[in-house]
């Protein structure tokens, strides 16, 4: 079995690190070798955050070799674009349509780039855009966006549904489990 490479991208505070924990735990429970790697030093401070997750029979580097990302799993639209060059030509994308203004945009010095979804789709046909925040709000908690997105991602991977649920049970605080399970189910409905 070849190694599968998933690159998670977004902005500090969006719950990327928890999502990559859940994903890695699922891989481990499925009996695969897995490595995960992230730079999180600045995550608290609203900077870009990426996390690499690789799984297969035997994984060496925890950094995904450049240009070999199979799935770009992104939580913010502009960040999605930033990492497009790291994808394989036939790579797939699961991305949230959430837009978070970087400082230069917030200060009115630059505009948030227009028509990003169209640009992404024109380069990568196999793109699923998830209205993550809207779905999370419908579920009843804006903070479950990351779980909604995980639900959407799970459709692309060959793991038992039960493994996802077990991983969520392990990693999500008990108080928030029920709403996260709902969020995950809602994410799985996205096609």
């Amino acid at each position: 079995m070849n190694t599968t490479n998933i690159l998670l991208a977004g902005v500090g505070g969006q719950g990327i690190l928890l999502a990559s924990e859940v994903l890695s735990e699922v891989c481990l429970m499925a009996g695969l070798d897995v490595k995960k790697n992230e730079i999180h030093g600045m995550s608290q401070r609203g900077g870009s955050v990426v996390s690499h997750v690789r799984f297969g029979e035997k994984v060496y580097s925890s950094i995904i070799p450049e240009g070999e990302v199979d799935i770009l799993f992104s939580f913010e639209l502009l960040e999605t674009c930033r990492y497009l060059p790291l994808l394989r030509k036939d790579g797939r994308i699961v991305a949230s349509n959430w837009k978070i203004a970087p400082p230069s945009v917030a200060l009115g010095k630059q505009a948030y780039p227009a028509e990003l979804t169209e640009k992404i789709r024109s380069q990568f046909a196999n793109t699923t855009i998830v209205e993550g925040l809207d779905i999370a709000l419908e579920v009843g908690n804006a903070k479950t966006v990351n779980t909604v997105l995980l639900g959407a991602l799970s459709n692309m991977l060959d793991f038992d549904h039960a493994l996802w649920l077990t991983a969520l049970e392990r990693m999500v605080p008990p108080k928030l489990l029920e709403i996260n399970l709902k969020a995950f189910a809602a994410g799985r409905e996205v096609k």
Partner: protein
Amino acid sequence: MNKVLLSGNEAIARGTYEAGALVACAYPGTPSTEILENMVQYKEVDSSWAPNEKVALEVGIGACFGGARALVTMKHVGVNVAADPLFTLTYTGVRGGLVLVTADDPELHSSQNEQDNRNYAKFAKVPMFEPADSQEALDYTKLSFEVSEQFDTPVLLRSTTRISHSKSAVVLGERPQQIPTPSLKRDPAKLVMLPGNARRRHYDVEERVLRLEEWSCDQPFNRIEKGKGEVGVITSGVSYQYVKEVLPDADVLKLGMVYPLPKRLIRDFAANYKTLYVVEELDPFIEEQVRAMGIDVIGKDKLPICGELTPGRVAKALFGSDLPAENTADLPQRPPNMCPGCPHRGVFMELNRAKAYVTGDIGCYTLGFMPPLSAMDTCVCMGASIGNATGISKVLSAEEQRKVVAVIGDSTFLHTGINGLMDMAYNKSTATVIILDNRITAMTGRQENPTSGFTLADQPTYRVDMEQLCKAVGVEHVKVIDPYDIALTRKTVREEMARAELSVIITTRPCMLVPRDNLERRNPLYVDHELCTGCKACLRLGCPAITWDEQSKKSNVDKIICVGCKVCKQTCGFDAFQEIEA
């Protein structure tokens, strides 16, 4: 076998526990910090934050002289601070095992330089292990304690950001049932390093390096992995993983111990190949030693010295493979920023307005360098702000002297700033010092320090009284202010800058991310667009909660992230910022 996913740092903590250590001490620093944060779960080990790396190492040395195994951890630059005890500890040797973790940061993900601490192993003549994943991080930690005792030497364990912060599967072991009881044992000829004793110990150190070198040639941590036999590669640490990706068919000599090098093993290995690579991050550390043995290799003539390696960078350097171009076209960058409600923000806005020349320091407040605050002129190393302010004031005209302000955080001040302040008082400097006391070491993820009133294990303890401390070293003018009060901040900054004598301003707001210090609930604000004139004065704060709306030409507040500090309200001349009543 049950496997768990652990980061390199979690694995080092676990390895320390499984090695039967009794003491762990550290000063935080990315990427090393989580090691001690994870030690706390192992109640059998006494784990604590020291005020700096030198103290941390000295505490570890004391414990090891008492016969206990001790772990000391720090980031790469921390070893510079701890170098003094390290370079003599190598002469005394140990009683209980002592392992010093140096967590290096190739690529400077979160550091002020990119030094390669493998050089310290050679310089201090201390053996160094270098793990390549989390399982090795755990195994080599235990091994380091054994080697420390077996060879009577401190041992360096080198991690890098990609080892410390990567997770991979690990099989856990157990802590030994029997751990030797520490006790007093006098051994002055070995532990009192006066010249007469130290002179003799130096011979022991040199002999120890030779013994380690010979021994390591036959140890499983220095192993050869057979490929197709055409090319050979010598590598270690995280670089090993990239070699396996990029040169899957090569024969690989993977070094688990990078100092001293197993010369016999290397010579035997190298004899088999016309093409021999040394693949290592940063300095040509292995390469130079292998070349000194008279063996020709391909190394830094192709591979970069600056920056970290990645599979793509190794492939590009060795075979000229293309790296995908970065997608920079029209994409705004997303640099880190101070948090909404950060108590540092208003101080920097005022320093900018007062046109201060700010000798800066290291912490969250270094972000005061970024626009629009743009109020930092120097930043060298922890504690440097104060000495730098003293020095530059010495050479300026009286008028320019007034502009000089040193800005330093509480943790950094207690780390190595206090000595500088003593010098200022003693030698009558006229500069102004601002201590941003948010009661926590925020930059590295909010670790307790002597200003917090709490220990690493979250136990209540004494708090340093900053004001009294400054007065005690001889500072006459000490002003204590609430940095959320902008008028007071402005007035105090300007008055103390104008004063032709040394003065210290201490700000007292705690970091707004520390729940125990932020019990008071504050309502978020909104902008009343009837009152907002679009003057953009509030944008000077660079608060992530305030955004400019191009359509209405007015500011807005994001009520989800606003914490209600009201600093923006005080920058607005039109009273447009209003509280959202709960």
